[in-house]
């Protein structure tokens, strides 16, 4: 917050930043790549700002990582910023996916390809889980929030409860907890 006009990244750097995120994210792991670029490499947002945006992007329906790009772009430069980030993230991947799809669906030599893909997918999942570990270590310092994180992770990720029900319990709990522990 409190960014001066001159501190805001240009539309071109928002666009190229999200082109990088889009092009690096083989196999997924987009949230981790986004944090790397937006918080660590470019310093557009603090970790706290990023985390709020990431949470809101997950709570709004739709693809989380696309939502996150629009959130970052809107925060930085309004509508043009949102468009720059969205197009940066999606334009080249759209071309790649359509090309790969056309080639793959018309050839039947895809076995080795799909085996390699599954390995990359497994690593990309680890990338997002590793992001979770890092964010936990950096941001969760009390028992209450730790219980909320663990509750959401286990109820959906292990026990398979539906997300809306879990959030209906977890979100009010988290808000109450944050209200009780607020700083004056």
């Amino acid at each position, binding site marked *: 917050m409190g960014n001066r006009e001159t501190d805001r990244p240009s539309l071109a750097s928002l666009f190229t930043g999200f082109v990088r995120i*889009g*092009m690096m994210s*083989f196999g997924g792991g987009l949230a981790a790549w986004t944090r790397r670029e937006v918080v660590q490499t470019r310093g557009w947002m603090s970790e706290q700002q990023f985390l709020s*945006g*990431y*949470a*809101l*992007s*997950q*709570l*709004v*329906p*739709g*693809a*989380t*990582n*696309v939502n996150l790009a*629009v*959130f970052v772009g809107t*925060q930085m430069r309004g509508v043009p910023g*949102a468009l720059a980030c969205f197009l940066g993230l*999606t334009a080249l*991947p*759209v071309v790649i*996916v*359509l090309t790969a799809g056309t080639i793959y*669906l018309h050839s039947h030599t895809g076995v080795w390809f799909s*085996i*390699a*893909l*599954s*390995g*990359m997918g*497994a*690593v990309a*999942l*680890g*990338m*997002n*889980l*590793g992001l*979770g*570990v*890092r*964010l936990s*270590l950096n*941001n969760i310092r009390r028992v209450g929030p730790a219980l909320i994180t663990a509750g*959401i*992770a286990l109820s*959906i*990720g292990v026990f398979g409860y539906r*997300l809306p029900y*879990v*959030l209906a319990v*977890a979100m009010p709990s*988290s*808000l109450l907890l*944050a*209200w009780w522990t*607020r700083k004056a």
Partner: protein
Amino acid sequence: MTPVLLQLFWLFTLLSMLAFGGGAGVMPDIQRAAVEQYHWMTAGEFLDMFAISRAAPGPGSLIVILIGQKAAGFPGAAVSFVAMFLPSCLVVHFVARFWHNAARSVWKDVVERALAPVAIGLTFASGLALMRATEHGFMPHALTVGSTAAFAFTRISPLILLAVGALAMLAVAAL
């Protein structure tokens, strides 16, 4: 628009609005519609598309353009893209504007601190759910656990680990 284009538009608009917590949650619904309801493709073709869109750079939700392309060619891909992303992007844009304009206040600080553990919990939840849905056997699990530790505690380049993951699976399959 032709009936197929209208079906694509309606299907992905609806599902994107139901995709709380990310696109992965509605994948089974997309599969059901594309394979069983509209017969745009076989179950095997859907799984191939799922693998391609997940492995290719960019958001995994781009699977919708492959489905659109299969169902109705290039116009189908374009309609699916707009239907999947326009509504949710508009919503998040207005949420972000509201968030940006909300003055620093006690309640914003409270909401911000309440959102952090939820965001982190959802990150673990979606990772674990995808692991359960897509990974079978020792090697994929070992790769995911190993790379989780590597990303959490080292500064190793993800591209190196992605290559290691691909090679490890190929090696296991070749032996």
